[in-house]
């Protein structure tokens, strides 16, 4: 009875408080600014040009001649895309690793930049550069910055090449199609950008997970398909002078047809292993266990853009400091990147002397060049630039050179390289894709676990017999000097990396 009386007494003020609360909530809902809608229509990006026309269904081809797609069919607001440096605030180790990678500088590396400029200048059409930027600068593409007149503001996330949001918002990939046949859902990143931060995010990571670890994306980033979308490059009349499709890069297909693919060993298992060289050596010994931890270094074969011996020139070639990376961190991560790259390259190949015998006044040599550790062809990638060759030296017992093979650019040299040719059949040494009509291998590359026998018939020229010493090196170079000189106007000596070496004493050679 007493309680009821008290309730009656407080009922009116309590009801008033409830009404006030509801009114305040309603006012808050009305007055709080609503987040801007996500996605920008192509017509809302001033002066964005579509020079290649619509597709067969009449739809705009926003990113053609690249195959890149935006999940929403719209552009993104650069101000709402998180940079890798922002992700690195929490994901420090991943950021540190990625900062040394080639993915991080995919759109900053000066050699690449100058080559795109040379290509677009040659056709006087900046929009054709979308073919290159689809893989190298997806954020620039999806914000509408690859255009003759660039009306979209730059942002840190757009300068980071293949960064966190590239892979972690991917929802679909078509590796056989290549040429950046990947669909990115940047809208998820934009939406999450306005969400919880720091401690609040840790307490409730559901939305962040939905943005970057949706099941579809998680499955894709474990799959070689994601890598294949950019590591297959096919030239046709849309972006080159080719009358029939010319395969310029087939790394994914090489892997797909290899024993590794059949064993379920993916790109990530080697290139994202925390110790890639050790992982490959384990594979070579039959241990197909997956890595304990995956790294974001994406270790590959580019020994030039990780060569810390270049000093400040390396920083310049890599396009300067990344957002959020200071000098000390840069040096530290590059040193590790260089170490891992060199160790990784040394696991790829081997040389074996299969035959050495005099034949008609000549020394007949057969040397097996073996692909021991690469899960794809050797060499692979864009092989008008990335090439390898055999360097052979034969000395007599006194140390005099009896024979020395030529450098990589002569027809006599055993070299694995492809030539880009223009419509007149002339070689293009500086990677002018848009002028390329044909891609021709001079010597076929060596498939995974395969080998190629290189033969030599070396005139003994009056050699009266005795002991000879053979030294062979399988050398690899990531680019031709012509590329740097033509496009960058720099004469930089591009070092050759010894993938494998062979040393053998040839006894009692009689002419």
């Amino acid at each position: 009875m007493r309680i009821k009386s008290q309730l009656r007494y407080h009922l009116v003020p309590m009801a008033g408080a409830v009404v006030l609360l509801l009114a305040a909530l309603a006012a808050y809902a009305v007055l709080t600014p609503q987040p801007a809608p996500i996605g920008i229509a192509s017509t809302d990006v001033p002066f964005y040009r579509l020079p290649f026309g619509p597709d067969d269904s009449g739809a705009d081809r926003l990113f053609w001649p690249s195959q890149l797609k935006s999940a929403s069919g719209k552009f993104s607001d650069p101000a709402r895309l998180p940079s890798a440096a922002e992700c690195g605030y929490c994901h420090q180790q991943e950021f540190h690793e990625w900062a040394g990678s080639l993915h991080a500088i995919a759109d900053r590396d000066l050699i690449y930049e100058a080559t795109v400029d040379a290509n677009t200048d040659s056709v006087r059409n900046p929009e054709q550069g979308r073919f290159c930027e689809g893989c190298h600068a997806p954020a620039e593409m999806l914000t509408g910055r690859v255009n003759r007149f660039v009306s979209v503001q730059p942002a840190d996330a757009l300068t980071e090449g293949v960064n966190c949001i590239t892979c972690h918002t991917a929802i679909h990939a078509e590796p056989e199609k290549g040429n950046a046949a990947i669909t990115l859902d940047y809208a998820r990143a934009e939406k999450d950008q306005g969400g919880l931060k720091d401690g609040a995010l840790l307490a409730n990571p559901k939305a962040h997970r939905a943005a970057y670890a949706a099941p579809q994306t998680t499955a894709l980033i474990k799959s070689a398909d994601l890598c294949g979308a950019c590591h297959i490059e096919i030239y046709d009349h849309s972006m080159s002078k080719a009358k029939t499709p010319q395969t310029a890069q087939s790394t994914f297909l090489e892997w797909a047809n290899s024993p590794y693919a059949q064993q379920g060993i993916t790109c990530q298992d080697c290139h994202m292993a925390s110790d890639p060289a050790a992982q490959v050596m384990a594979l070579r010994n039959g241990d197909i266990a997956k890595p304990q931890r995956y790294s974001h270094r994406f270790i590959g074969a580019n020994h030039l853009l990780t060569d810390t011996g270049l000093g400040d020139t390396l920083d310049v070639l890599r396009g300067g400091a990344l957002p959020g990376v200071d000098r000390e961190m840069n040096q530290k991560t590059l040193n590790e990147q260089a170490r891992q790259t060199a160790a990784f390259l040394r696991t790829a190949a081997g040389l074996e002397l299969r035959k050495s015998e005099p034949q008609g006044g000549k020394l007949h040599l057969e040397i097996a060049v073996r692909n021991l550790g690469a899960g794809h062809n050797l060499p692979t990638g864009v092989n008008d630039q990335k090439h390898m060759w055999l360097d052979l030296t034969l000395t007599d017992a006194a140390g005099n050179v009896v024979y020395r093979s030529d450098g990589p650019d002569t027809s006599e040299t055993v070299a694995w390289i492809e030539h880009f040719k223009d419509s007149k059949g002339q070689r293009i040494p500086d990677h002018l894709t848009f002028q390329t009509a044909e891609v021709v291998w001079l010597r076929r590359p060596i498939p995974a676990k395969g080998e190629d026998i290189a033969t030599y018939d070396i005139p003994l020229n009056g050699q009266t017999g005795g002991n000879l010493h053979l030294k062979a090196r399988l050398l690899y170079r990531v680019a031709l000097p012509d590329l740097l000189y033509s496009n960058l106007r720099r004469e930089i000596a591009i070092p050759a990396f010894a993938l494998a070496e062979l040393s053998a004493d040839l006894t009692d050679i009689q002419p």
Partner: protein
Amino acid sequence: MRCTLLSLTPILLLAAQPGFAATESEGLAQVKAFTLEHNAALVANAQKMQGSAEAYAALVAAHGGDYKAAWEADGPKLAEAVTAMRDNWLAASNEYETIEGIVAGIPSTAKYDLILDAGNPGTEEEDVAEYDLTLPDGTVLSRPGSLFHSITEPLFWGTDATHIKLEADLNGDGKIGSGEALFDANLAVGAAKGMVDWSKALETDMAAWKPNRDDAFTAVVTMTPTVGDYFGEWKESQFLGGEGDAFVARSRLIDVLGIMGGCQRMYNSAISPVVGTDDAALDGSITKGFDELIALVSETHEREVAGNKFTSEEADALGSEAQDIAERIVAQVLQAAAKHGVDIKG
């Protein structure tokens, strides 16, 4: 007091910057008047250059075209004529660089930029200066490249080896240094006359130009992003230890200042009155961007004048920084252009 100071600040800033105008039409008229004023000075200096070249040619002709005999007989006069041609060249070039950002950006006058200053010879695939040059002896040079940087600069400063007639101690210091040479008088007179003719032709077309919003925006958005290319030319010039024949007379940074200054003038005078009417924040941001760009180039040039030796790497880094600023400016100018229904040509 604080309020007074704050309200004065924008006025002081405006006063410190070139060419602000109250209205668009007034600003466009200012740009045209400014361009014509410097164009007239360009013509005058080109005429002086022609006079100096003719005096030089007369000295050589007096000795039957024998440069060695002419040097032995009239060495000091020939040296004086070469110095005069160089001085005239620098004065003419100064005038042109001041308006290049405007001339090259306006579609109806852009061809003069290729002919006078920026065009390649016909042997190149792009940006060819489409004109032929007739020399006094009747020789016609087909598409020989720009008058300033392809022909006269390498000729007067002795880096065009094919037209050197006699190495000579022009400065009288007892030794023949780099670029000290007598050069082909026929080419010197022909090129100087070409400079006069084409500068006058530019003047005629510039006088006929009807200033308009589309051209003003087009000039700014096409010329401002070229800043990175100029830094590249600076890097490759002999000022930074390169081997290029062009840009030997003075640092390319001076040209960059002139060209970007022209873009800034066009914005401040002709575009700012348009943008500022409905988006003061955007206008302020663009104005600040131009100030930053000019400051970066000025500071770099001041360091160069003070004796700082830049490496190629430093030149690249500075060029990247300038390009970043330029891209931010242009993105904003294009947004304003879209808002005002401007047709960007090119």
